[in-house]
């Protein structure tokens, strides 16, 4: 019997220290304490959605949960990602011709959105599996290709996230203190803005750029990174957060820091002078070049936290343009999905909400690992771009502390007195509070080939967290 264990009489100093209370529930009881000059921190408690009470109680009562979450979060935070190499997908991912990776949870051609279809068509053309877009579309529609989520191959891809064998990949490796686990994660090279494959464009200039990236950019970066040695991404990200990036919609500082880090090694590559100039111009001229590195770093961190039984930590949030999916540490590789929402934000030129595709991309791995929307307070420069004001940015980051398990030891927000960013989304807290993760995102045009039409904020559908909670509840061991 439990009570026969000798009880610890200390009670955390309850009877000996000055009383200080946290109160949840009726304000009357907190007021009565305040009348007696007892310090009270009040909770603005609200009931969870009807129907979730049983699963919440089961999961909150899971004796494994607290330790499992501590373990999972420790693993996520212990990862020290470095850029160690740049190599073709066919080599590092065992990607065979006719297999394409894509963003988000699993999807079929039939259910794929415009930008996803466009990107797949472009990848068919790039791989010379079709001569025309029409032929590519027919092949894809006939189901003669294999579609697999990036997330299933330690990979993440922005927007449509389509990866084909000839694309070059950033190779990111965990070189954390406890012995370089060797865990790796991958992401493609960022194409820049405008008409690009990741937004579903597949015109000749898109394919031409992708060819150049495979023939020139990839090999030059490979040589530069190998000459430089592993590039410490955590350090660059930590600095960039203090320079106004949030590492999802703003990567200007991080990209600049990366250029500074690699410039000499790029210059010394054994490549034609004009290629070196083109590479420096391309990387330096693309404010989002670092996004793909932040994503791979996030993926390496999140994967380390996978499959801890009892843990309610979210290890992936991803969208394929049709569905929003999450994966949770305690439920293995299972996806919990629901229809993706259309982001709310500002539109470029004459585009409007009717031109927007539902939310798409694996870039939510940044929010999953404590940056992006979770670090909005660090990036006042972009809050207007996504349709807000500076206080909104501060409020967004502060709100995320309610649903996260910890504060990032390396990523700090100067304006919050260098408080660590909120990191480690906890399914139980999302359900309890009804606060959904805040995601910064680009908005893709709904028609294949249009490209980016805006940027803004989006929230995951609440039901994916409810579904994950139900699954966690079913896995709670019976006493």
């Amino acid at each position, binding site marked *: 019997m439990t009570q026969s264990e000798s009880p610890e009489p200390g*009670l955390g100093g309850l009877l000996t220290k000055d*009383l200080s209370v946290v109160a949840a529930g009726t304000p009357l009881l907190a007021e009565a304490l*305040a009348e007696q000059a007892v310090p009270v921190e*009040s909770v603005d408690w609200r009931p969870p959605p009807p129907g979730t009470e049983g699963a919440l109680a089961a999961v909150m009562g899971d004796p494994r949960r607290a330790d499992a979450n501590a373990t999972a979060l420790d693993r996520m935070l212990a990862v020290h990602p470095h850029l160690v190499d740049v190599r073709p997908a066919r080599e590092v991912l065992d990607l065979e011709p006719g297999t394409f990776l894509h963003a988000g949870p699993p999807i079929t051609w039939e259910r794929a959105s415009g930008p996803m279809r466009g990107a797949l068509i472009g990848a068919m053309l790039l791989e010379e599996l079709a001569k025309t877009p029409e032929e590519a579309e027919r092949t894809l529609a006939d189901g003669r290709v294999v579609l697999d989520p990036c997330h299933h191959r330690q990979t993440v891809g922005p927007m449509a996230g389509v990866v084909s064998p000839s694309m070059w990949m950033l190779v990111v490796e965990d070189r954390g203190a406890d012995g370089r686990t060797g865990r790796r994660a991958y992401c493609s090279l960022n194409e820049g803005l405008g008409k690009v494959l990741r937004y579903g464009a597949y015109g000749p200039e898109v394919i031409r750029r992708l060819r150049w990236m495979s023939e020139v950019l990839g090999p030059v970066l490979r040589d530069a990174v190998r000459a430089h040695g592993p590039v410490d991404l955590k350090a660059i990200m930590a600095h960039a957060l203090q320079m106004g990036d949030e590492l999802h919609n703003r990567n200007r500082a991080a990209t600049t820091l990366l250029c500074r880090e690699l410039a000499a090694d790029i210059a010394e590559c054994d490549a034609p002078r004009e290629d070196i100039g083109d590479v420096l111009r391309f990387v330096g001229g693309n404010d989002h070049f670092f996004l793909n590195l932040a994503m791979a770093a996030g993926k390496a961190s999140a994967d380390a936290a996978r499959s801890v039984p009892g843990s309610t930590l979210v290890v992936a949030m991803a969208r394929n343009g049709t569905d929003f999916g999450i994966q949770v540490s305690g439920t293995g590789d299972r996806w919990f999905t629901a229809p993706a929402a259309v982001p709310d934000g500002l539109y470029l030129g004459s585009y409007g909400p009717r031109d927007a595709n539902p939310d798409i991309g694996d870039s939510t791995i940044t929010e999953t690992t404590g940056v992006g929307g979770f670090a909005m307070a660090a990036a006042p420069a972009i809050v207007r771009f996504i349709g807000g004001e500076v206080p909104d940015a501060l409020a967004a980051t502060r709100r995320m502390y309610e649903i996260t398990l910890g504060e990032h030891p390396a990523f700090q927000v100067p304006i919050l007195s260098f408080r660590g960013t909120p990191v480690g989304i906890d399914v139980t807290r999302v359900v309890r509070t009804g606060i959904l993760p805040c995601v910064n995102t680009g908005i893709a045009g709904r028609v294949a080939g249009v490209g980016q039409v805006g940027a803004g904020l989006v929230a995951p559908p609440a039901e994916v967290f409810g579904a994950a909670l139900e699954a966690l509840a079913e896995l709670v061991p019976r006493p």
Partner: protein
Amino acid sequence: MNEPEAAAGPAWVDVRRGLYRDSITLMRISRGLAERDGVLGALTAMATDLNLELLSRLGFTAPPDVGPNDLVVAIRATDEATLGGARDVLDAMLTEAPAAYAPGAPGAPGTPGDDQVPARTIATAAARAARSSGIAGTAPTLALVSVPGRHAFVEAMDALESGLNVMIFSDNVPVAEEILLKDAAARRGLIVMGPDCGTAVVGGAGLGFANAVRPGPVGIVAASGTGSQQVMCLLDAAGVGVSHAIGVGGRDLSAEVSGRGTLQALAALSADPATELIVMVSKPPAPPVAALIREAARRLTTPVVFAVLGDGDGIGSGAGIRGPGGRHERRAGRDLTAAVEAALAVLGVPVPSWPSWPAAVPPRPRPGALRGLFAGGTLCAEALHIAAGTLGTVHSNLPGRPAGDTGHVMIDFGDDRLTQGRAHPMIDPSLRLERLAAELADPSCSVVLLDVVLGYAAEPDPAARLAPLIGQAGDTAVVVSLCGTPHDPQGRDRQAAALRDAGATVFASNAAAARYAVSLIEVSEHSVIEGHRR
């Protein structure tokens, strides 16, 4: 649906789905609306069955398809303009930000550089309070949980994981959850007080319903909130103070929960240098639990006085004293007052004459029924026990007692079934006031016995609402058990004077009040025999 006569005037009923406000805030809003000129009736409440029934009683048509997560608002007024005005006021009151911050508290709006919005979970609030406590302040040691019972487990578990002890004020919490919480707490060296723990005193501060008592050498462990309050108030009246009063919840000594909280509380108080004597207040424990407690008390270095209500308790009938090795064991009466007297004897303090405030015109005994209307469950049980010894059958909603509304009746208005979606009767007296009026109008009722429990969190001026009714009692005698201290926010002596001036006879000892009330019932030969037969 039949519209009651009083309900003349335009009515309006609306549902705010998924909008949650706690029952006390809603009670305040209802009362604020009802007090407006031209408003004939108003109710804002979560749509529990109990509240829907109340809505019908007030003459409103309950909306279809609503549940306890929906907020129902209903107003009836003399005319449309008044109704419209009341609706605007209602909307303003409902949209007001919850009064979550004491002014100047850490994190209060306007505090530069700190969080601007109240925390949404206990974990966040605990982390915030710990951060802002700094070097000089004190990090929180306790979470006070008063959310609706079906949500209390989650909040309490969150508190334990944040390293906080927990007092669960909420009732309607499943017993399996109570056991899980108490075990989780013990593993962390923490304690869960409750569920349904209404009263605690920690280091002089009253939590929940607690009285302003002087500091002193007596530690209280109580499975009953009002029992604990009665003991601390009588001790205070005798000039003896309280170190701490730890509540454990009414089910702690059941066979299932097996004294988990009581054993921890006894150990903690025994280790506490400020505590010289422990008074344990409870109903009779389940027999195997009584043995556990007896053993634990025997091993303690601090003497324990048991104030166990009711018949045979397996610890020692009524109040008994256990010292180290169980040496000085004494027997005392079977009520809380006797237990306090036993504790005073251990401390070597003389027993005072317990305060009472006799009515100017003493009532005369006459035949009829005794009706006890209680806010405190333990005070109700104690009075019932005393009354049943003389009067025989007493109907009650207390467990194990015959139900019914005729003859002698004792009702505990704090019962779980009467508080679903409503505030406790010590905060919201409306159901009891309604019943009091009915009893005073009932010719078969000759004596009404009421408890009035003062202290933090209780109604600010209970006598103000009782006195007008008592003043119209006519031949019906009104006896009041007044549980409070002179330092309570309501002022015990002010309350006593107001009740006495209205015609009631007032006692500080609940047992004395019950005996007096019983003495006012003229008993026929027949009913005495019936009483002894049971």
